[in-house]
Structures are given as C-alpha cells and as structure tokens.
C-alpha cells in the first residue's frame, strides 16, 4: 500500500510539469503588466487606506531619518573634538633642549596620542597676545614672557581620555597640563546616550510602522478576502494574487520615502540653524545636507519600500494559505 502511494505521487509531479508546459503553450507565464496595472488601480480604489498608510509610513520614516541625521552629526562632532588640540602639556621651565625633545618623544609613545605639535615659548607667547588683540611691542621689555615651552597634543578614543591624561602627567619634565576634560566628558556621555536613544528609536519605529502598515492593509482585507478566494478558485497562483499587493506596497513605500525626503530637506534648510548653533558651542559645525543627501534618499526609499512590502505580504499571507471554510473563518 505505501509503495503504491509513492508511485502515485511521482506520477503527479510529472503530470504537473506537463500541465505547466501546456499552460505555457497556451499563452505564457505571468501577465505582469496587467497585474501591475491592477496593483496601481487597487491603490486608487482604496485611496483612504493608501492615504493612511502613506501618512503613517512617512511620519515614521521622517523620525528615522532625523534620528540618523542627529547620530551622524554627533559622530562628526566627536571627531572634530578629537581633532582639536584638547591637551596642552607645559615643559618644566629651564629644561634643556634634549629634555624638551625627550618629552616630545615620550608623548608620541602613548598609544592614544595621535598628534603632537611643539610650541616654543616665543611662539606660544605671541599667539596668546594675538588672541588678546594686543601688539607685542607694547609689552616688550615691560613684562617678561611668562610661558614655558609646550606641546599641543591631540588624542583619539575620548573614552580613554582620563588614563591618557595620567600617562601624560607622568612624563618627566612635564610641569603642568591644561585640558578640557569637562567638555570631553560631556560630549562622550551625550554621544552615548543620544546614539543609544536614536538606535532604539529607529528599531522601534521600523517595527511599529511595519505593524501599522500591515494593519491598515488588513482593514481592506475584509472585502479583498472574497476576491482572493475567487481568484484561487479559478486557478490563480499565489504569485499572481500577491503581485498587485506587492506593487501597492512598493508604490506606498516609494511615495512615503519621497515625502519624507522632501520634508527632511525643508526642515534642515529652514530649521537647521538650531543644530548648527548647538554644535558651534562645541567648536564643531553641522554636516552639510548635500554630503548625506544621496545616502538619505536611498535609505528613505529602500526602507519605505521594504517596510510597506513586508507589511502587505504579512497581511495577505494567511489568506493565501487557507482554503474554503477555513478561509471564510478569517477576519
């Protein structure tokens, strides 16, 4: 008996192949242009659903995009701060040239130190006077240059700032160190928390919008459920039934991506000043929109399309799977 069943099964698959071949002979495969038109038509026919899907998806994409812009700017800010000479090490006054050179070499040997620049007594003094806006001649002979030789040090990995600082202080002939640890601390904690919040926000929004889009599409399923059952009963394949839904999802995603992009450009263009002044407080500046516009455009459109296509597939899947009385039970 089991042997016989097996034989029947094998015959079946051969028959199916022949049938598929016969179907091809009759007219060919999928009428994609018809199905695509049908998807676009459904989009218009269910316009209130399309409208709410697009609104929700645009809002979510917008928040995702803004989060990404904030993350990028903070990353940029941190890099800027790293680039600045945040530590100045003063050499013991009266140290000989060899000792001064040795301090430079010792500094370069510290792992997180990425740049060391020597500033002579004279140069440092001149610079400081210039900063105060006074002519040197005015003070010449009146006050003696109070500054020792110094090194300007740039460091990377701000999270290790404290230990790097200790290492610098420990070098022989370093008399004093000027640093801006408070600023560094502020920036690193800010970076960590904002990046964390944004990443969570992006993930949550992605899932939430997928859920909402799939639910919005599900609302129209009450009427489409009947259509799907009819389509199946006249021999439509799952791909044939899915295609218009995929097109619908694709167009919704595309439109939402474009809307978000336009709003983002407008916001950055008109309201970008706030961010710029905030960043300027830390001696950085906002990344120019043009720098990340292509990436943002691709990100918006790709995530819009993926979110809404997956959303519509999720909502149609079970209607494809169930047959007859089981399908009519679905809500």
């Amino acid at each position, binding site marked *: 008996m089991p042997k016989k069943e097996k034989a*029947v099964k094998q015959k079946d698959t051969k028959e199916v192949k022949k049938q598929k071949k016969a179907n091809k002979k009759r007219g*060919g495969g999928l009428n994609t242009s*018809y199905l695509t038109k049908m998807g676009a038509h459904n989009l218009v026919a269910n316009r209130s659903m399309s409208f709410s899907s697009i609104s929700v998806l645009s809002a979510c994409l917008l928040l995702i995009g803004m989060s990404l812009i904030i993350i990028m700017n903070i990353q940029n800010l941190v890099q800027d701060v790293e680039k600045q000479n945040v530590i100045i090490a003063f050499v013991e006054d009266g140290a000989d040239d060899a000792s001064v050179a040795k301090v430079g070499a010792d500094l370069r040997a510290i792992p997180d130190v990425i740049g060391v620049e020597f500033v002579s007594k004279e140069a440092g003094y001149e610079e400081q006077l210039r900063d105060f806006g006074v002519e040197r001649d005015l003070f010449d002979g009146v006050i003696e240059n109070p500054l020792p030789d110094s090194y300007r040090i740039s460091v990377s990995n701000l999270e290790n700032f404290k230990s790097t600082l200790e290492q610098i202080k420990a070098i022989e002939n370093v008399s004093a160190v000027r640093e801006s640890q408070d600023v560094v601390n502020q920036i690193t904690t800010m970076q960590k928390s904002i990046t964390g919040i944004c990443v969570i926000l992006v993930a949550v929004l992605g899932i939430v919008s997928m859920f909402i889009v799939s639910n919005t599409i599900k609302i129209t399923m009450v009427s489409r459920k009947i259509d799907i059952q009819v389509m199946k*009963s006249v*021999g439509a394949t799952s791909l044939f039934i899915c295609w218009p839904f995929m097109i619908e999802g694709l167009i919704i995603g595309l439109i939402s991506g474009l809307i978000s992009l336009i709003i983002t450009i407008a916001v950055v263009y008109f309201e970008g000043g706030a961010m710029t002044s905030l960043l300027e407080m830390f001696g950085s500046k906002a990344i120019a929109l043009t720098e990340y516009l292509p990436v943002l455009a691709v990100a918006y459109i790709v995530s819009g399309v993926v979110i809404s296509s997956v959303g519509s597939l999720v909502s149609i899947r079970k209607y494809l799977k169930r047959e007859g009385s089981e399908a009519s039970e679905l809500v």
Partner: protein
Amino acid sequence: MIEFKNVKMRYKTNGAVALDDVSVRIDDGEFVFIVGASGAGKSSFLNVIMGQEKVDAGIVRVGPYTLNTIKRRQLPYLRRMLGIVFQDFRLIPKMTVYDNIAFALRVIGMGEKKITKRVRYVLKLVDLSNKANSFPHQLSQGERQRVAIARALINNPGVIIADEPTGNLDPVLSGEIMSLFDKINALGATVVVVTHDLELVHQFDHRIVTIENGKILSDIPARNAGELVFKSEPETVQEDVSLASVQEEDVEVSEEEIISTEEEETENA
C-alpha cells in the same frame, strides 16, 4: 476522471458531516446530474473535487491528481482543468462582467487579444453581450448566474462542474443553458450538473446520482434514467433560435479550441 472511494468529510469549523462514505466514479466524457435536497452535501461534493476542502477519510482522484496528497502549489493547476459554476457565483464585485470572465484567462497568462475574442464569444453564448461593462451588482440574479457560467466555459476546460446553474433562470433560459452543456459534453467534455430541479433533470437522458444526508442514495445510469422518467420534448428546447444563431457564427473557433485542449489532456493522461 473523478473518483471518490469511501470518502468522509466534515467541516472542521462546526463539525458538520457533509459527506459520509461516498464512493462514486465519473469517467471522462460523462454527463452526470447530482440531485438531492438542500443540505444534502451536493456543494460539499464539489468543494472536495476542487480541492477546497480536505477529506477526513477515503481517497479522491481528479484527473492526474490525488487530492489526499496534493500540494498547495498544485491546486491552481487542478482548478484550471475544471470549469466551475459556483452556487453563489463567486464574481469579483469590483470587476466588470468582461473582467470577471477575462480573469480566468489572465490567470493562465493568455494574451489580451485572444482574451477579447474568447470573452466576446462566450458572452454571446450566454446572451450577455450588452452587459460586458456592467458590474455584478448592476445585474439580476439570472444575469449573474450566466456570467458565472460564461467564466466556467471560457477556458475550454475538460470538466464542467455546475452547482445549481439554473437556479435563478426562467425555464426557457434553463433549457438553453442545459442544452449548451449538452453540446459541450458532445464535444468531449465531462459535465457534472448539481441541481434540485427534478423536472429539468427528467428532460434529459443522463446519469443521475442522488445524495441524501451526505450519502449516495442512488446512482442511476443514463438509459435507465431516461426510461424512469417522462421525457418532455427536449428537442424543441435545443433548437432555440438565439443559441443556434450564435453557434452558426462562432462555433468553428470554439470547436477547434476545445479539440486542441482535448489533445493536451489526452497527452497528459
């Protein structure tokens, strides 16, 4: 060939037993009436044939497929062999009459030009040429029924299964539709007509299977069935004018296509 062997089917949703130990065999080219009271299990019998409901016991074979083990992705191909007229018509409300009928051809990937030709032809057959652009809700019950019939015929299927196809038609139209089925049967297709209209059944000399409470009560072959009943001049109905005029014009195309479909099917057998 459609074959049921000791089939039992109950709806999982409410536990209603719809078919109970049903064994029946319908050979290629046969014309069979399935009769029985409302709730007897006639529609359920069709639901099993088209693979919409799974059976709980027994074996079901339809053409090359064994439905007990059929895979979900094979179902569309099973259904394309069958032209089904559903009791509730199953038309898509948003689609025009034309699109509803054309849909069955788009599903198999036929080109639009061929589709237009075929749809025009079957619309004439069911006398609905002037309703091509109407939507189902704009039609009478009888017109909807004829759309459902047109869609079942459009694909030149080897098997026609009609669930109460004349339930909403007046006697003249019923007769026309039945003789249309007769004609298609004469061209080689298997025809299964479900009905509770015994008067209509008795106008023809075909095999009659009676179902009651999900069981086969009787199965009377054609000649006996004819002897059992009083024949009420089926000839006059078949000679109806409107149908004859349509066939004269277009029947060549249809016969050719039916025959070519046949060849494919025998190739498969």
